[in-house]
């Protein structure tokens, strides 16, 4: 063991340095969030705050309700992910277990949509949301994101791996399609589903362009929208930079915490399922 540690020492040091460089913008964010305005603008650079300014967080919260924004983001992301998985499971089941007219066309359309940029749908989707009276509401964001072409695609692949003998046996025992889906296929694909849940959640929490078009009033802001608003309104005042960094830390914290707890799932799931960024 000792010899092994010594032998891999040079490489370990290189990897350590690379990791620090990669993570440094995030460390810098945290350090800046704890500095005073004078320290943040000091030349030459000060690396560490003399006294950590924890008040920066409280002061940022006084200027904008980041707690509410983060809650809005987590809440909408959870509901969206729920519907994405539900709808994807239903369609993936239909695509793998049923034969019906237009099945091939449906699958090809889904495949085509997977490749195309979502932005191409934004103008008509915006009009549809406004016609539904859902502009400036979280419901508008939830409904328009409730289907994920990508989730359908991945779940279909997972469902195809399940041995047909197993499903035939269940059917001859009189199990309904609903029971087969929820009691056999979904439990057997649970690691795929869990990965889809995690990645979709992160994507929805990080989503900016589409939500920024839908929500207009502050009580409906998602964290990305609220944070960028805070940045554009406060960024012109030099003394506010520590507060902006504090807001950044609050924004990133929930995801980093989630990643810290579920790191293995994220990393294994992504390379196993070929998940798109």
């Amino acid at each position: 063991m000792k010899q092994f540690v010594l032998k891999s020492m040079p490489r370990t040091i290189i990897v350590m340095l690379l990791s620090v460089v990669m993570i440094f913008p995030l460390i810098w964010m945290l350090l800046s969030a704890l500095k005073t305005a004078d320290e943040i603008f000091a030349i030459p650079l000060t690396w560490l705050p003399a006294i950590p300014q924890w008040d920066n967080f409280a002061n940022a919260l006084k200027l904008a309700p980041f707690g509410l924004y983060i809650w809005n983001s987590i809440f909408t992301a959870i509901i969206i992910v729920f519907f994405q998985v539900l709808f994807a499971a239903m369609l993936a089941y239909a695509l793998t277990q049923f034969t019906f007219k237009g099945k091939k066309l449906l699958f090809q359309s889904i495949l085509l949509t997977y490749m195309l940029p979502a932005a191409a749908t934004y103008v008509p989707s915006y009009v549809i949301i406004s016609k539904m009276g859902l502009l400036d509401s979280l419901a508008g964001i939830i409904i328009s994101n409730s289907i994920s072409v990508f989730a359908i695609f991945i779940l279909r692949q997972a469902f195809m791996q399940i041995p047909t003998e197993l499903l035939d046996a269940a059917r001859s025992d009189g199990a309904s399609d609903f029971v087969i889906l929820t009691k056999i296929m979904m439990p057997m694909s649970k690691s795929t589903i869990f990965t889809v849940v995690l990645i979709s959640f992160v994507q929805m929490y990080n989503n900016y362009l589409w939500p920024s078009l839908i929500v207009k009033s502050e009580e409906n802001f998602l964290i990305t929208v609220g944070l960028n608003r805070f940045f554009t309104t406060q960024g012109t005042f030099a003394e506010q930079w520590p507060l902006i960094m504090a807001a950044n830390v609050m924004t990133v914290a929930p995801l980093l915490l989630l990643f810290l707890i579920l790191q293995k799932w994220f990393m294994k799931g992504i390379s196993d399922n070929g998940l798109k960024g």
Partner: protein
Amino acid sequence: MKKRLTIALFVGIPLIPLLTFWFIPMIVSVWLSSTDWDYISPDFSYVMLDNYKQVLTSSDFHQALWNTVFFGFWTVLPTVALGLGLALIVRKQMVGQTFFKGLLFTPWITPMVAVSIVWSWIYEPTIGLFNQILGFLHLPQPQWLTDPEYAMWAIIIVTIWKNAGWAMLFYLDALSKIPDELYQVGDLEGANAWHRLRHITLPLISPTTLFLVVLSAIDSIQAYDQIQVMTQGGPAGSTRTLLYLYYQLAFEQFNMGEATAVATLIVLLTALLAFILFFVSKRWVHY
């Protein structure tokens, strides 16, 4: 009969949002590109291909097209190369391996909006971290985000930084599937590290490379958040990509006809790219 009802439910329910927010908007978008609709008034008239003529002859579009290609090229290749480099270093057994992989992957998890704000602070010309370091090394200190020469590079660096760990994960998986015997045969034949990489590793991971290039390229066409936060397409349109041009035409100028024309062109560009990569892959990807 009951079977048909079940099928109708399983297909029909998910089909409602799929049609409403994907299939129908895709078609409507192409239709809108033949009108002069301005979003506010209920009236519009058909102008057929005028929007396309207008767009294709405008210098804004030419600049945005070039910016998109430039951004795509300089983010995709370095992201994939850096991903492979990181994977090659991290893959061998070492103390704290899982921890380091996690650190290298972390940027991918964070919201682009938040990290773009951090980076715009790092890029600050006089007191920003980046120029302080460059000054320490006696290198030129550009006005990153306000100089048309450098603004796109600033956006590119952030994008590579955020995605390299993601590419690394795929390469780690691909590398772990190469059988050790192949390297042992290479060793017997006296292959050095470069030969091993060139003749064993690279050919065997070429499907992963293709996959990463396709996904990163499609992803690069859709880049928006970092541009919106750091430069808003400026200075002088130097970071305005096709997608950003589309956003400005649609949601700042409400010129829906030209905006949807740009959207159609973005779709065509994506399709063309997918087609080219598929064609190229037949020549050099070894399955």
